[in-house]
């Protein structure tokens, strides 16, 4: 005791503290070196690149200030379309994913364990199979003449009811983006569903019992107890789904190539095409910066708006 009193905590210098914790730094080093080299450095380099006119030949790279950004917003119509499409896409997919996964979780949770894990497995299967596999199947399913979707829609009387000819889902400008959204929704539910089921498991039974004794209906219990207690999970799902969906790419590349008539252009598809098809690295990087700013600020506001009501 007297020893530690003789060397009070605050008298140790910064360097001494670092030296004493050297083991900890050694432990993080194997992760942090590649993190700096392959994550942090390229990130900063991407920021730098966005101010350059940069092609394949490094010797010809040229600093051009904000020209890339000015061009993006004043002279690149396709990018503006891609920007609108991406926002529309997020606005369609994210609410649907959140609502469906909460609905599924609430309905499935009281069911027997076997039923619960069957539903969970069914919705997680598309996550496991990955975008490429699903995109390939869905191209076939969406086909106007021999696709499964049109067959099912005809079977339930969809076309007869509306009195319209069969739709070529990916080939028509009105439906192409919606069709891609459907595919992305199909693989975005699995993870939130698992999270909501786990969160429901953490709500104490006593709370429900108390509410029932007070005569609350199932509907009231859902709105007044379940939903508020799910809020931290809802926030997490909302933010992660938004971030993921903003980066929609695989479905565009494999299913529509941005068409028809630019109806399915998205930001990341523009980045891919500019950088890896046209070799405009600087211009592509500028789009990456725009995406980063959009996603970063939206995630920030989601946390700000919803996070303050969450009690941890």
């Amino acid at each position, binding site marked *: 005791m007297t020893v530690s009193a003789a060397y009070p905590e605050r008298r140790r210098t910064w360097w001494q503290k670092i030296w004493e914790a050297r083991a900890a730094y050694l432990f993080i080093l194997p992760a942090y070196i590649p993190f700096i080299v392959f994550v942090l450095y390229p990130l900063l380099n991407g920021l730098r690149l966005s101010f350059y006119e940069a092609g394949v030949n490094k010797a010809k790279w040229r600093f051009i200030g904000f020209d890339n950004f000015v061009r993006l917003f004043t002279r690149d119509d396709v990018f503006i379309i891609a920007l609108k499409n991406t926002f529309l896409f997020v606005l369609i997919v994210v609410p649907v994913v959140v609502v469906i996964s909460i609905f599924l979780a609430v309905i499935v949770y009281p069911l027997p364990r076997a039923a619960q894990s069957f539903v969970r497995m069914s919705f997680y299967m598309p996550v496991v199979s990955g975008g490429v*596999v699903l995109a*390939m199947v869905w*191209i076939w399913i969406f086909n106007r003449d021999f696709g499964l979707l049109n067959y099912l829609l005809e079977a339930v009387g969809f076309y007869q009811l509306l009195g319209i000819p069969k739709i070529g889902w990916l080939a028509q400008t009105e439906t192409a983006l919606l069709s891609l959204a459907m595919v992305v929704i199909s693989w975005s539910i699995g993870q939130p569903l698992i999270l909501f089921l786990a969160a429901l498991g953490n709500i104490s039974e006593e709370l429900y019992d108390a509410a029932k004794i007070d005569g609350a209906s199932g509907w009231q219990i859902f709105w007044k107890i379940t939903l508020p207690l799910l809020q931290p999970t809802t926030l997490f799902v909302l933010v992660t789904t938004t971030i993921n969906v903003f980066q929609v790419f695989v479905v565009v590349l494999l299913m529509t190539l941005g068409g028809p008539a630019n109806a399915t252009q998205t930001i990341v598809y523009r980045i891919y095409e500019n950088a890896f098809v046209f070799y405009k690295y600087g211009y592509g990087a500028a789009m990456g910066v725009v995406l980063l700013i959009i996603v970063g600020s939206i995630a920030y506001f989601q946390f700000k708006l919803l996070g303050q009501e969450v009690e941890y």
Partner: protein
Amino acid sequence: MADFTVSQAKAERLQLQKAVWSARLTRLLWWLAVLVVIVGSLLSLMPIYWMITGSFKVQHDAIAYPPELFPTHPTLKNWERLLAGMPTLRWLLNSFIAASGVALLGVITSTLAGYAFGKKRFPGQNLLFWLLLLTMMLPKQISLIPLFIMMRDLKWFDTYFALIIPYAAYPFGIFLVKQFMQGIPNDLLDAAKIDGASEFGVFWHVVLPLTKPAVGALAIFAFMFGWNDYIWQLVVTNKQTMLTLPVGVSKLVAGWATIDIGVGMAGATLAFIPMLVIFLLFQDYFVKGITVGAVKG
């Protein structure tokens, strides 16, 4: 007085009846909702069923209308053409090497770093950790191009290095391990230190054995990530023999006009099977990884 009790009883009975009816209505709605969930689950599995059965359909049946819900003339021709006409098995091997490499490196670096972040105190800890989290959340397209140029300068195109090394640091894994290790009581670590264990000994003999569930989940997620990381594998590979399975198979889409649908479905099925097996074997790890990873840090 008598009138009053009669009307009161009547009112009570009416109320009871109303309650019974509303309970019945709720039950009915509930079963309807369950029905919707069942239909939804089946719809969610439908594309996978369609893909697998499609791989056994001859082209004539694949484009038949109305579609065949089950192949009436099952054939193995698509599979033969997939396996004989393309370096498909090489793609499969490449995907395995890439995904295993990502998983192995991810496990090593993440357990070490996760241990330091979860169980040690050191200057700059919060900053270093938040930096990891931040880059985990943000879209990585901005670093895609510089990383691609770096691979070019290193001459790593069409090598396993390009498919594995950039993912040596796996922020999600570090986060997962940290969350898990925080739950291990410090007394255990202190006891081992008093017994004379080295810093690494404490990690290796005490902490790591207790972290097995998290390490399992981490390995599986890293593997799945390495298997499905399409855009990166697409841009850093070009040589036929260095493509990964999803990349190789996806190139069939460009030839839809000339390639039978069944061949494409066989390719998609082949890319799906390894992940399916892993998922079915380690389902609990998936659930664990997702739920632990989402708890606030």
